């Protein structure tokens, strides 16, 4: 089974894509409208540059090649909610093409393209005989992300969307209801021919619609039938997909370039835009680039993105082993304390530098880091640390098996940690104890 998605994401601009109408919730239908988004004769689009910036950010996030020059096209089709009967979208040279996005950090999902376009208005059925149209949504900017058919199951498609939305939210500050505003066209083929289920809203419905199609297409094939290439829609209430039109009636949109907007050379703009890395992506990158366990990377990032940044700084300057030893160790252990008293992570760097150059010992470095982060004096700390280290050392002297067990499974340290915690009765934080126990065990390996 192959599944490919076309995902529409609303971009969080303050004003619409081609006019200055607000994008916020309107008090009543057809109140956030003007000649441009109503498509009145003589009106003209003016591009909101922020839309291009968001498009570039998402293209970068998806690993796409950002176009040097991009422009807009007219897609012509007749529907009452499309005020000009022409949608301004991108056809040739979209903002980004040819990306890869890793599902769960592992499975590559190829991204065909990402383009930006305007949303149509909304039609609302009133009774049997009539519909009303609300153009408040007309001209709201969207990004459309198109994937290759690299997803294998409906559940995977849902997982992919969940991860994608969380990443997008991080990169472009999508509002909290981002998930609700996600709309998807889902392409699915069990056999050779594919069907497209148009305009499915929300993650759960995507999974439901795809599952329905999976079952339907499988049944058709098992019965010796042929799946017809067609466009279908999803009935949310009944949980079924319904045929809308066959392939031979697919619309020909007659794309031409949008002459009112011209071309945009976005090479320099794209170079100047740096995107915020999502926590997941940072975790995966740290694990990959510094060859550390994904669990450790995740722990660093979850504690704080700044902690992970300190890790990178130290790893780059003094090597990964020092970063693991110090940043994942005592710096991480004292992080909350440091944040609480408003310290800065840069304070720990001198100690690590001096350790790396051989000026100070393990124990001295650990103490200096703690002093720098907690603001305690070396003397008081010296005594306390000495006490803590003595207790641990004494215990390990009596139980050498822990050290050898630890080499096989680091859970062996738990016994020592439990003992020390009990002995010291809350004098040291658990993070401190854990860090010290592990450090001393590791120095004996």
């Amino acid at each position, binding site marked *: 089974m192959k599944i490919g998605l076309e995902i529409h994401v609303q971009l969080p601009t303050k004003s619409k894509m081609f006019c200055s109408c607000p994008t916020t919730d309107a008090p009543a239908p057809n109140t956030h409208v003007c*000649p441009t988004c*109503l*498509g*009145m*004769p*003589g*009106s*003209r689009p*003016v*591009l909101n540059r922020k839309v291009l910036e968001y498009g570039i950010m998402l293209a970068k996030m998806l690993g796409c090649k950002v176009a040097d020059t991009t422009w807009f096209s*007219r897609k*012509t089709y*007749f*529907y*009452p909610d499309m*005020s*000009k*009967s*022409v949608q301004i979208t991108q056809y040739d040279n979209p903002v980004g093409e040819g990306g890869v996005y890793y599902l769960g950090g592992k499975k590559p999902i190829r991204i065909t393209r990402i383009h930006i376009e305007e949303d149509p208005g909304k039609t609302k059925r009133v009774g049997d*005989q*009539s*519909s009303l*149209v609300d153009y408040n949504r007309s001209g709201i900017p969207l990004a459309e992300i198109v994937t290759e058919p690299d997803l294998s199951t409906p559940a995977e498609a849902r997982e992919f969307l969940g991860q994608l939305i969380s990443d997008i939210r991080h990169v472009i500050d999508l509002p909290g209801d981002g998930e609700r505003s996600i709309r998807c066209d889902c392409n699915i083929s069990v056999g050779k021919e594919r069907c497209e289920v148009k305009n499915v809203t929300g993650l759960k419905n995507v999974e439901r619609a795809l599952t329905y199609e999976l079952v339907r297409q499988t049944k058709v094939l098992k019965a010796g039938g042929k799946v017809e290439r067609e466009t279908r829609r999803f009935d949310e209430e009944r949980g079924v997909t319904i045929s809308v039109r066959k392939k031979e009636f697919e619309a*020909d949109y*007659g*794309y*031409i*370039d949008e*002459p*009112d*907007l*011209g071309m945009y050379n976005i090479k320099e703009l794209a170079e100047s835009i740096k995107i915020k890395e999502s926590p997941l992506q940072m975790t995966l990158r740290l694990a990959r680039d510094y060859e550390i366990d994904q669990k450790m990377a995740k722990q660093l990032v979850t504690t704080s993105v700044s902690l992970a940044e300190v890790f990178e700084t130290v790893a780059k300057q003094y090597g990964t082993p020092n970063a693991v030893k110090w940043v994942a160790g005592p710096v991480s252990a004292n992080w909350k304390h440091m944040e609480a008293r408003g310290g800065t992570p840069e304070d720990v760097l001198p100690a690590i530098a001096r350790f790396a150059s051989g000026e100070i010992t393990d124990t001295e470095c650990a103490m200096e880091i703690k002093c720098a982060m907690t603001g305690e004096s070396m003397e008081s700390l010296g005594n306390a640390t000495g006490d803590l280290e003595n207790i641990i050392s004494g215990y390990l002297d009596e139980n050498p098996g822990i050290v050898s067990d630890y080499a096989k499974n680091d859970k062996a340290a738990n016994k020592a940690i439990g003992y020390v915690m009990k002995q010291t009765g809350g004098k040291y934080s658990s993070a401190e104890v854990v860090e010290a126990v592990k450090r001393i065990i590791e120095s004996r390996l």
Partner: protein
Amino acid sequence: MSIDMTMERMRAINDRYLMFHAMAESVDTDAGFTFSAKDNLTSKDMETCAGSKILIGYKPVFDATSIARMREEGGFLMGKTNMDEFGFGTFSTNSGLEVPRNPHDVERACGGSSGGSACAAAVFEDHVSLGVSTGGSICCPASFCGVYGMAPTYGRVSRYGLIDYGNSLDKIGILSAKAGDLRRYINVMAGKDPKDPTSCVQPELKNEERSMKSVAVPKEGIEGLSKDVESAFNNALEDLKRMGIDVEYVDMPSLRFAMPAYYVLATSEASTNLARYVGMRYGQQEGDLSLKFDDYFSSFRSEYFGDEAKRRILLGTYTRMAGFRDRYYAKALQVRKVVIDDYKRILADHDAVLAPTMPFTAPRFDDISKMSALDSYKADYLTIPANIAGTPHMSVPCGYGSDGMPIGMQFVADHWDENVLFTMAEDWEKEFDLRRPEVTI
């Protein structure tokens, strides 16, 4: 200056010549000057139909930037001028509304598609009219009605408020019986307008006088002329030489390709522009609402679009269909570049390219009714190249035929070089004896 005009006289003149579709309700006698505007430029609170039945009743909520700037300058908008539906024509006869009559002979056409504008410029004293050119719609009627007409460089005047024909080709310009009005009013309307991004790349308009030194006459541009046009043009060339201007004949092979490319681009764009007229939201909305929306749209468009609009929608839809798009639309975009390059090549050594504006004088209405669509498309072969290239161009009256009808010649200058055309018109006006039509109202 006060305006010497009454509504009574305006109406009487309009009854004879039919230049206006909509008119002001009263005369603003305190205005600085009078002007009119082609009916595809939106005017606040004055009906704007672009010559189409489908827009009857459309009262825009905003002024086109060009009209707004003329009003700010003290202009009184007398009326909105009749035209071919959406600009689709050469004689203003493809109108869903009224067809303007040539002030030199009311049995003849004004030319098009800014026919009403040329008519108003010829008939009213001290009057200037805004026209719009897509493929020659300013120069053609200027030539037929014996007035000066200029379409500036594409992007010089904001198109905000222009009801689009072909957005990559449409240019707003000026028609007037006085040469000096070209410079004066293009200056009023020109300049960047944030509401039209394509107006925002223009360099500033130059205004120091710059007389023309040399013109290039393309051999391809003097083929197929009527005897009257040929002899008037040749006389004009002699006059230009006397004025000290070099005249050189050149080859300009791209002129032959300009017309097919123009009709592909213009109709491709037009067919998408006209998609919005479906009997909802504005203009004509009398249709059978019990129909399904697509049946309603189809019946509405079938009823209210004219034949030429339908023809161009069909042509333009065909040329951008999947499978044909590359053969026609994409190819036409390439041809446009070839035409531009050809102008650049010739204008590197000359101030302007010069040819007659139209191959014949204003035809009689009964003759026009016998012409095929192709015949009338072909009549535009001299005005189309400059339009597809987006270069500024100007028709000046240069003689009269044996039938007494005006004849014009068209100068084409390089992009953004309107100044050399302004000066040419002003120099020419001193030499040429312009005949105004007799208006006995």
